[in-house]
């Protein structure tokens, strides 16, 4: 069966520090991968998606970047965090042709 792992669950980082959130998927090949951010009481904002290794599409200009070094690994990064980067970050995957996304458990990032 397919599983998605996202870590850490919570993270408190000072302004100006770097960020690296990792997401891995097991049990499937060549998944579409997504990073979403969710502000408190808000919907899901798509940040990045990837249809293959090294292929990253960015939805909104921001202080973040994403990379896909391996087929089932998706990394969200920042060189210098801003206060506005605080939020709940969710990784998700889907298989081309199905559309439905399976979400990870999320990372609560607080930038102080």
């Amino acid at each position, binding site marked *: 069966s397919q599983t998605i792992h*996202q870590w850490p669950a919570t993270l408190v980082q000072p302004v100006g520090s770097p960020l690296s959130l990792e997401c891995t998927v097991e049990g499937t090949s060549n998944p579409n991968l*997504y990073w*979403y951010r969710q502000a408190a009481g*808000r*919907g*899901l*904002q*798509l940040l990045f*998606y990837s249809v293959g290794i090294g292929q990253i599409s960015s*939805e909104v200009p921001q202080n973040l970047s994403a990379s896909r070094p391996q087929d089932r690994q998706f990394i969200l990064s920042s060189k210098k965090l801003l206060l506005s980067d605080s939020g*709940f970050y*969710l990784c*998700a995957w*889907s298989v081309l042709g*199905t*559309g*439905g*996304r*399976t*979400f*990870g*458990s*999320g990372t*609560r990032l607080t930038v102080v």
Partner: protein
Amino acid sequence: GESVGLHLPTLSVQEGDNSIINCAYSNSASDYFIWYKQESGKGPQFIIDIRSNMDKRQGQRVTVLLNKTVKHLSLQIAATQPGDSAVYFCAETNDMRFGAGTRLTVKP
């Protein structure tokens, strides 16, 4: 781009009552829809889906209705329980974007 949106941001119901959560979409070419449930501090979880060649689909205590004429779908939860309290999102799967969701609160 086109996106999926929600009619109501919050819904409060009594335990045992039926709940109806509504969703409007704008892409008339959409052919597959999913409802997700997101509990506090967790990622969204799949509840039920429906394809555009159907107008109704039933699961366990949940029913999704699709009206393609007015581009509207709804999620009905029968005999709502406290464990149903969560934010509910609809998603049109050709669009990777989600609406704000509806927060369902079940009062004992």
